[in-house]
């Protein structure tokens, strides 16, 4: 510790900028990890808190997925002796000009046994639930909601419903706290029978909330209720809800884990680079310490402690940065979930879980210690006699490359072997790690080779400065190899993420070309994924009668739980779909699968459903439904991007039979040849637009919507790319700053023997551009391999779809000026410091 205070602390103070640049990689790596996980945890915590607040005294909830179930189930539940109170609920999200609002349709007569409505300035109509019931336009809002919209008792709220335009009247305002705090206060209560009408739910409930009699355990309650309602229902405590949120956020977590590991890996190289240079710079100091009696072990411990301190400083700053990042990310994730699931959810408070802090500290510390190992060993090996010889030259580390190359070859061979056995997940990930290790170990040799290729180019541009810059790169591989490795990894990450995006967009465009080919889509909301409102099936006949309409496909898409995982069930007219929008088969016979599915003898599942949930062609899938468990074989597998967790396509007839639900989410409309899209759209709006809630999207509208959602999904990817580029630039700044310090005397000599300032600047700039160019060559090459692994990881563990390999050539080309410009900009300050300092001091510098 005394050595740290006497030796390390003054050095750190003197080189504060370098220390800051060094810890930047750790800050970013830890920051991304903490930020992403904290944001996910916070959103999930807010979601759970909302569920708890809405649940009130509810102990069990009975549901059957999004389609809901018939009203008569309520009677069966209420007749169970163990049930103290049972109240039906309809939950729907409605978009307003001030964000989404969760509308809770409840039966005011029974619901007060489960939930308390703490109203302010209580209106007599609410005091008497019967009066509330008698006025189906009644609405209770929260104080937050009312304040944001300047609402008071008896304020009127217009709303376009499935029952036409309706005006609701505010008859109660809930005080903040409890139920009123759910969804950040964006909640409104209405009578359940009014909700059935305005959302087009027919005579169905979404769920029944149940409180059990005293002394009845949850297990007993579940058993009795299961016996009463049958097997097609989920009966769970409210806290069990939310698997779909968790499944979605898991994808983000995995993606961000990869980015943070990469950032930490890059940070490790930056630390290694800085410490390797520090050891060479501090040889005299080490020599003095050794001469004064310091053991090799003490020197090694000193450098490892410095590395650990750097790691801890970076980790602490990273945790702070992560919290800031989490604040931004919660809004983003909340927004994305809202877009995909139609449920607004934002986290009120950001709390970093202790396990996240612990993991972050472990990651930062381990990374910095690994990075410091080799420099610490080199420091311990310094010969005190040679170190104290002033003016002696540092021997370059020849021979190290040979050993590295051997290890690299071993890693490469093993990673190729792992590729051959890649169906085993640990082998695949092990192979991935080995491939990265091989690239990292080869980086110094490869960068030396690329430097040699660059020499004539740089000399051609500026004979003196170019030559000096190239020589510095060739002769000082230790100085640059760490940075080149960091840059290479950063660019490989950028290429892989960019390639993933490109491949995804390409596959989605191809899917849209086939699957989303109707001319018009009639929906209940501007967002095609919103499922709060539904159409009656009878509307189809009217739509078919409209001039210019050739064919109408009825689509009911609902999320149901299969093996307790939320899956999108798409019920439609399969025969028509096969004729109009047949997706190519991944597995199974193309003709037969549609025929069997149309006949209700099987289902067609998406590739991602099969991959993520382990379903195989021919295997029977069991789907719980109100009519009983639906068991159908997988008749075929297709590539379908309808849902992130996978989709199951089944005959509409089967769906109606098992779910007693003939409602429709979307009508897919094909026009007759020559019919005008705009004219038919207008006719539909004229016929139905004023009578009910109805939107008509053109094919272009829907494609744009899908692309917008895709853009949102890739929003995080772009953040990851920005982080990778930032780390790369930091790496270059760090390398050059260190390089300038390291070459201070050399540059001083250049100036002393007649080098103009501009010549020195040009040398530094060209060296930086050289580093950038080497990093680009290696990074773009490693990116090709990294992209393969990323796509494979996406296929295996993230989206479950093989999106195909598409190298992002445009992005690679765009990276050339970006990185070279970044390298040039990164060199400006070091270049200035190279020419601004005292020449006398530079010449005396050791």
């Amino acid at each position, binding site marked *: 510790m005394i050595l740290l205070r006497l030796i390390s602390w003054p050095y750190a103070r003197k080189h504060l900028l370098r220390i800051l640049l060094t810890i930047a990689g750790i800050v970013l790596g830890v920051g991304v990890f903490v930020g992403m996980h904290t944001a996910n945890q916070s959103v999930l915590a807010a979601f759970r808190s909302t569920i708890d607040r809405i649940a009130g005294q509810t102990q069990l909830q009975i549901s059957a997925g999004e389609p809901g179930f018939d009203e008569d189930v309520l009677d069966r539940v209420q007749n169970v002796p163990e049930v103290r109170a049972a109240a039906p609920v309809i939950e729907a999200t409605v978009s307003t000009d001030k964000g989404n609002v969760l509308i809770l349709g409840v039966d005011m007569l029974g619901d007060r046994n489960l939930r308390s409505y703490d109203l302010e300035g209580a209106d007599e109509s609410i005091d008497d639930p019967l009066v509330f019931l008698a006025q189906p336009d009644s609405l209770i809002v929260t104080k937050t909601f009312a304040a944001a919209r300047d609402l008071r008792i008896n304020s009127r709220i217009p709303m376009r419903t499935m029952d036409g335009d309706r005006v609701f009247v505010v008859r109660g305002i809930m005080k903040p706290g409890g139920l009123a705090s759910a969804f950040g206060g964006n909640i409104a209560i209405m009578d359940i029978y009014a909700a059935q009408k305005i959302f087009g739910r027919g005579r169905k409930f979404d769920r029944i909330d149940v409180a059990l009699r005293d002394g009845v355990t949850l297990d007993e309650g579940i058993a009795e209720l299961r016996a009463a309602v049958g097997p097609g229902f989920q009966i769970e405590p409210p806290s069990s809800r939310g698997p779909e949120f968790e499944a979605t956020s898991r994808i983000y977590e995995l993606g961000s884990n990869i980015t943070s590991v990469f950032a930490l890996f890059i940070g490790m190289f930056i630390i290694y680079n800085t410490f390797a240079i520090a050891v060479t710079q501090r040889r005299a100091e080490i020599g003095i310490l050794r001469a004064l009696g310091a053991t090799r072990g003490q020197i090694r411990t000193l450098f490892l402690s410095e590395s650990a301190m750097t790691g801890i400083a970076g980790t602490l700053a990273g945790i702070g940065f992560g919290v800031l990042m989490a604040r931004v990310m919660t809004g983003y994730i909340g927004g994305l979930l809202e877009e995909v699931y139609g449920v607004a959810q934002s986290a009120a408070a950001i709390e970093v879980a202790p396990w996240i802090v612990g993991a972050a500290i472990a990651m930062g510390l381990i990374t910095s210690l690994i990075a410091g190992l080799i420099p610490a060993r080199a420091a311990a090996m310094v010969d005190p006699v040679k170190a104290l010889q002033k003016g002696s030259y540092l021997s370059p580390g020849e021979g190290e490359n040979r050993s590295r190359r051997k290890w690299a070859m071993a890693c490469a061979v093993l990673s190729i072997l792992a590729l051959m056995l890649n169906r085993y997940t640990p082998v695949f990930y092990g192979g991935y790690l080995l491939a990265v290790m091989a690239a990292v170990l080869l980086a110094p040799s490869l960068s030396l080779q690329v430097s040699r290729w660059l020499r004539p180019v740089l000399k051609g541009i500026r004979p003196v400065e170019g030559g000096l810059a190239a020589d510095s790169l060739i*002769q000082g591989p230790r100085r640059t190899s760490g940075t080149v490795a960091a840059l290479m990894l950063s660019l490989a990450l950028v290429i892989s993420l960019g390639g993933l995006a490109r491949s995804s967009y390409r596959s989605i465009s191809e899917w849209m070309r086939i699957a989303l080919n109707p001319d018009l889509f009639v929906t209940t909301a501007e967002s095609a994924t919103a499922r709060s409102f539904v159409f009656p099936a009878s509307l189809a006949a009217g739509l078919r009668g409209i001039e210019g309409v050739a064919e109408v496909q009825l689509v009911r898409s609902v999320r149901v739980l299969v093996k307790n995982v939320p899956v999108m069930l798409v019920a439609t007219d399969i025969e028509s779909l096969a004729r109009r929008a047949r997706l190519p088969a991944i597995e199974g016979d193309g003709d037969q699968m549609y025929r069997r599915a149309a006949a209700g003898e099987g289902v067609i599942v998406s590739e991602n459903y099969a991959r993520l949930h382990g379903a195989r062609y021919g295997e029977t899938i069991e789907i719980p439904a109100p009519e009983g468990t639906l068991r159908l074989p997988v008749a075929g597998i297709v590539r379908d991007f309808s849902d992130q967790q996978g989709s199951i396509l089944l005959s509409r007839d089967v769906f109606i039979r098992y779910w007693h639900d003939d409602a429709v989410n979307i009508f897919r409309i094909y026009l007759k040849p020559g019919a005008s899209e705009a004219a038919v759209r207008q006719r539909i709006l004229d016929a139905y637009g004023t009578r009910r809630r109805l939107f008509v999207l053109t094919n272009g509208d829907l494609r744009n919507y899908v692309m917008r959602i895709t853009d949102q999904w890739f929003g995080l990817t772009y953040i990851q790319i920005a982080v990778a580029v930032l780390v790369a630039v930091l790496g270059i700044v760090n390398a050059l700053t260190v390089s300038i310090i390291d070459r201070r005397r050399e540059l001083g000599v250049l100036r002393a023997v007649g080098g103009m300032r501009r010549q020195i600047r040009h040398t530094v700039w060209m060296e930086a551009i050289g580093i950038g160019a080497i990093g680009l060559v290696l990074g773009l090459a490693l990116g090709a391999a990294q992209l393969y692994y990323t796509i494979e990881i996406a296929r295996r563990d993230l989206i479950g779809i093989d999106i195909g390999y598409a190298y992002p050539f445009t992005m690679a080309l765009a990276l050339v000026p970006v990185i070279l410009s970044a390298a040039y900009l990164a060199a400006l300050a070091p270049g200035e410091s190279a020419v601004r300092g005292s020449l006398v001091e530079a010449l005396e510098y050791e």
Partner: protein
Amino acid sequence: MKFKAVIQLRGVCKQFDGKRRVTALEGVDLTIARGEMVSIVGPSGSGKSTLLNLIGGLDRPSAGEIEVDGAALAELDDDGLTRVRRDKIGFIFQFFHLLPTLSCLENVSLPLHLRGWPRKKIEQRARELLDLVKLGARLDHLPDELSGGERQRVAIARALSVFPPVLLADEPTGNLDTSSGIEILRLIRDLHERLGSTILIVTHDAAVAESCARTIHIRDGRIAKDVRR
């Protein structure tokens, strides 16, 4: 005796501002004629290296005027100072200050490259210079493949690359063993006689000092004695 001054200092002061202000030189007046070989001696910290740095345009005085071969250094900007160093002055350092990554030939060529000479002419001149310092057989050797004396000879060849009118040597034998020191001193004297350069040598070595026709003694930042032999 009428002579033409190649180095002229008038009232030169140099102070270093740190936690405490240190005066390294105070009111130094000095004239050195073209072709003189002058040694500067004095105890450590007396200001002799500072004096050399100021004359070489490596540093600027706090006050006073310095003229080198007709160029008033005070009036020059950084590029102007660099041009003076490039065209009028050759430096020989105690620790040689060769670039470790360049061969002997490349080290000697460096100042010529910086002047933008054609490659062929540069190589020809560098070879001549290395022959002059008797290292013609070591053209492609790196500095760490040479002995101390050989390194200093490369540094001298580099300093002579454009045959500057002034050669400044800061303890040129200070980092060498006795025989190498004698060899280097002999070389410098030989060059002085053959090329007629003005040479200033800062030294602690009495033998080196006495080998020069003139010795300037510096003490506490002032010229204490100016001895001509």
